[in-house]
């Protein structure tokens, strides 16, 4: 197992929500859990993966994710069993699609 942690700046804070999980932990798959965090301008991403040695690709995946979503006040926990970056990105996007956003005057 390899553990990776990323702390990223973000601007978009979703409406308060109960923690939820998308995906399943299975071969070539992963689960992603989203929770409200106490850091309103940050997004924490905590990864546990069965595949060792892919830290640079995880970093690229997480940075790309945050570039697209700019999440704030959220902790993202990933339990991975050797999913490809494609599956990881899809699962992360599916998780974010479950969030609700406050009405914004300007965005």
């Amino acid at each position: 197992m390899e553990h990776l942690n990323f702390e990223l700046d973000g601007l978009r804070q979703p409406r308060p929500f109960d923690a939820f999980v998308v995906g399943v932990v299975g071969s070539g798959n992963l689960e992603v859990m989203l929770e409200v965090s106490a850091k309103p301008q940050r997004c924490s991403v905590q990864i546990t993966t069965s595949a060792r040695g892919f830290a640079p690709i995880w970093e690229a995946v997480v940075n790309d994710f945050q570039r697209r979503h700019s999440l704030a006040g959220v902790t993202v926990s990933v339990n991975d069993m050797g999913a490809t970056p494609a599956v990881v990105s899809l699962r992360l996007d599916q998780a974010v699609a479950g969030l609700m956003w406050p009405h914004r005057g300007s965005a």
Partner: protein
Amino acid sequence: MNAPCTAWNLQSQNKAQRLARAAAVLPGRMQGKRVSSDDVVTLLEAVLECGDRVCLEGNNQKQADFLARALTRVNPAEVHDLHMVQSVLALSEHLDLFENGIASKLDFSFSGPQSARLARMVSAGQIQIGAIHTYLELFSRYFVDLTPRVSLICAQSADAQGNLYTGANTEDTPAIVEATAFKSGIVVAQVNELVDVLPRVDIPADWVNFVILAPKPNAIEPLFTRDPAQISEIQVLMAMMAIKGIYAEYGVQRLNHGIGFDTAAIELLLPTYAESLGLKGKICRHWALNPHPAMIPAIEAGWVESIHSFGSELGMENYVRARPDVFFTGADGSLRSNRAMSQAAGHYACDMFIGSTLQIDLNGHSSTATAGRIAGFGGAPNMGADARGRRHASPAWLKAGAQARQGRTGVHAMPRGQKLVVQMVETFREHMQSAFVETLDAWKLAEQAHMDIPPVMIYGDDVTHILTEEGIANLLLCRSDEEREQAIRGVAGFTPVGLGRDHRMVENLRDRGIVQRAEDLGVDKRYATRSLLAARNMRDLVRASGGLYDPPKRFRNW
């Protein structure tokens, strides 16, 4: 100067000699054209001559496997230096011929299962390759400079006169026999059964010289069956993007799909996702395609008007027989496939080809060649190439052509259409191998095998779109090599090629619609799940067919 030779029928004289030799070595043992399977080697030694061009029917589905084995048993002291001209090297016997000193030269199209051994034998100097062709190219050369002297072919049944019924898998047989029989060549057929009355005549008796009842039915491979249970969510996502971003965008009505799970996912999304977008009747009505089991739900939902097939698919016989308005069938009710005709149809009459590949470079050239394997091409280059001789217009063809020509001058200002050629790949293949590369393995293979040119499956200037899980790159709209490279990098995901993108330029390409993401296309990733597939396993396909589809045993996993 000497007077020119006055004999103009040397080939037919030679054919008569061969037939006479066969009659002489098998006295009283032939019944009309029928030869016993025990006498097959004797027959082949009698009709073959050293240096003959020989077509041993073997394509990617049915195989003249009994005749292939027999040919490996002829005496190489008597029969040697054969020049094999055949579409596919699939059986070990096809290469044993070269190891045994019976054959020395090879012209072919595809060698999938034997590609590694072929590469070893070429580098050891055991095989001289004339050229690697596409199917249509090789068939064409049968009628120009590679006409077979002897063809060893495969049919389902023969009658007493030697008429042949090829059944659903007619495939290459008409092209091979036409070239051989009408140029004074010899045609030997292996058949699975002898019958009094054929269901239909696919090859007339006077084109056939010898018929042998094979001890076992010919081998046949279910090459186009994909178990929906193995389709991934990423493939569903890519299929959604293909349908919305390309099929609907261009209104593609006539098309060919490559083999693989990527395109099987599209087939299984037609009656679900595409239907929900209101696309029924607006896309995908006419196909050049084998009877893919994954097409059953779309056919049953009334999406498909016609399908012409290169070959058949094991287990689909009864289903095809029950859907003659869709498939091409004989008076007997069974499928009539024809590889040459379907390849021509795919090349000239289809507006789109979409298929997978192994490697794509920064110019969009795509190749399935890997070092140490000479796999050849099959039909993909003819399906996946703009038909330069095409002159009829269709909305999809015109739109693609207009995008490619927009704002251009000179020779490119003439209104003209273009075929849509889509390469669909997940950015990483298994074992985290990148599908995007700086340099194709084809270059290394060309060097290893002393080829004149790298074996490129689909040239970059024919590729119009590259589709990955990250999005679609529309290469028709690129106006410079740099734009093209960044468009490709822009959909190459987290591969080294993708990570090497210029983010600012890719965002600019995205603003211009050259790179499109799922969200740009209005594709909601939450729906990218396997529940969108019209069939989720083999059993669903059987059920959708009303029990008509009968999958081969290895796919009966319930």
